[in-house]
């Protein structure tokens, strides 16, 4: 398995947590994984990008046109990070509007669950539902349980399942 994934959003949206969950699944499966993340000033509401490379890679950065999958938490970032995606790469987008890619109003679903920040795992659920990321449901839930603070585990798992169950 060799896959390159980008996660794009703005500081405070849970991009880092989603990045860690995906990487943790790879570690649990004993597959090499590398991520790169945005920390520092940009975390104050600015555009943040994570890259995830699963499989036999040496460095964490993704070159233009090499990402298989993009998880887009903040739709306005699409033109910023579009060039990283392969020509046949797929976006999973948090959006209430029609357009390209796999779209879902994850923010609204997350609000109904009680917290807009849960939209990150809803997008993961959608990606797993569509087979865009080769993880099992159980693998993802195990990683969420490992990484989420105890009192938020149930909420996070619920968000992931909401994503899976979307029609």
């Amino acid at each position, binding site marked *: 398995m060799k896959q390159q994934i980008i996660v794009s959003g703005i500081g405070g949206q849970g991009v880092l947590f989603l990045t860690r969950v995906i990487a943790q699944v790879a*570690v649990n499966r004993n597959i090499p994984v590398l991520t790169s993340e945005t920390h520092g000033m940009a975390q104050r509401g600015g*555009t943040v990008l994570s890259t995830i490379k699963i499989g036999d890679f040496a460095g964490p950065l993704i070159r*233009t046109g090499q990402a298989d999958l993009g998880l887009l938490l903040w739709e306005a970032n699409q033109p910023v990070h579009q060039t990283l995606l392969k020509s046949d790469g797929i976006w999973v987008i948090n959006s209430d509007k029609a357009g390209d890619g796999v779209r879902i109003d994850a923010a609204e679903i997350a609000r109904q669950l009680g917290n807009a920040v849960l939209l990150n795992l809803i997008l993961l659920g959608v990606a797993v539902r569509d087979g865009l990321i080769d993880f099992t449901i159980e693998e993802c839930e195990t990683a969420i349980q490992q990484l989420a603070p105890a009192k938020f585990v149930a909420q996070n798992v619920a968000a992931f399942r909401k994503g899976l169950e979307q029609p």
Partner: protein
Amino acid sequence: MDTQIQLLMGNEAIGRGLIEAGCQVAAAYPGTPSTEILQAIIDRQNQAVEPLHVEWSVNEKIAFEVALAAAYTGKRSVAVMKQVGLNVAADPFMRTAYLGVKGGMLTIVADDPGPHSSQNEQDTRLFCLQGRVPVIDPASPAEAKALIEPAYQLSEKYELNIVLRPTTRICHSRQNVSLAAPQILERRSAFEKNPTRWAATPAFLPALHRSLNEKLEKIAVEPDWQPRLTPGDTSQPRTALVASGIVYANLVDLLDELGLTGAVDLYQVLMPYPLNPEFCRELREKYDRILVLEETYPVIELQLAHPGARGKQDGTVPREGELTPDVIHQVLAAFLDLEHPGEIPGARRGQRPSLCPGCPHRSAFYSIKKCFPKGIFPSDIGCYTLGMNLGAVSTVHCMGACISQGAGFYQSYRQDGADFPTIVVTIGDSTFFHSGIPALVNAVVQQARIIVVILDNATTAMTGGQPVPHMGVAAGGRKTKAIAIEPLVKASGVEFLETCDPYNHERFETLLKQANNHIRKNDGGVAVLISRHGCIMDPAVRKAQERTRITILDTCIGCEKCTGAFECPALTMDREKEVAVVDQDRCIGCGTCIHVCPVGAIVKEDPA
């Protein structure tokens, strides 16, 4: 420890590696991208099998000196900082090269090519070349961790401080990292007095310098630290690639993607200084053309002095910015005469960062700008640099510079005889302790007439909330003595000192005007206003303050004052209706925007 392979960030891997190596004193000042290294040690302190002192020092110079003396006792220590932190610690760092250490000492300096979150992209490896300090350049989080124990051994063998230089893409990269059991060294502090070394006067320094030079010659040929060759298949004769750090990792992936793995001789330089002269000679003999890829300055290239070298000196490799896989692809394609990859798509700007909704700094900056629209606003390093978005930050230079720059502005304007502009300096609480205090004493002594606003949010916010000296808490939550800001300000000779919550904008603005009167009266001088409100990232602060649902009435005239001059990210413009709207996902209901609206359209929603 339940698993022996964990997903660790580079900084966490380094922190864990220090514990495994038996480091007993770790000191740091936070700074992106280095911060999580000490945090990782704090989080894992219970994994250490021997006593381990961990501290967030007041600045990098102090962190270095604390770790240094610990190494004099024979124990292993570490000082951790970001690249510009080494400038602050430069004085002890340079002398340490001559005097050396006893127990192993590492200085971990995280560089930020790009830069992503720094005031420059200086290269610590070049600093080490000047300081004559061996420096190690790891290519991945796992390698950074694996090199810590051998680096300590090298430090102890030659009694020298050794630098480990990760870069942002190592620090903030995650990887599967294997853990080992922390070793037990059973060292007891045993400082052997030797004033001719530890207090060396100039008379003793030529001998120490000579000894350093001899050690460096030996280190350069240490077998474990030699460049590692992956031989090519001779399809590219008399040609080689030389790389270090994360650039090496990027290059390995690129060669793989291009089907060129094993096609050309490839060297990874682990220790860019001191470089083995024999290696340099060998490269000159074996190759007509070499491409040198390194971040950020041509440190390896300078030492190689290869006549066929392509790199930063001849402009083959960009001299500034990060060597991303895209940049390397361009350079490699030109060097190996491959198909041109096409231009790198121009970087498009995403959402700019801004102060958080409810950030007390926003309220303070708005009031400052409102009271003194023509003022000069020197500011400093921290979240509050973002006061730039509100037009209330005119200069940002380096830690603690704002007070001295404010004083310098005053001295320059004053000598022209005309009325001087109001100079309002903003400095965070952590920065004030780091290097603001000497600057404040200097401003008072030199009779500078400036207003200093200390933005006290009770934490080191930008780097994730490390403790500050006035809170009475040390690393890991340990209780300690609190050093209050007010007595320090008073003892510095400041005669106008007031404290105010900037959420109370009316009082805050009254005090700013009083401060302006103070600096302008006959016997006036420095005025200090402490702007005090906890960082809104702290859940306890959010919980403790009133939260009301904010709404915007249809009387909004679309003047954009709340989204522009006040720049709250929870307020956006509806471009169709030309009115402001509240993003309820982001609004924290602080109500600080209410007074900003000129027509009173921002209101608290009636709870009924």
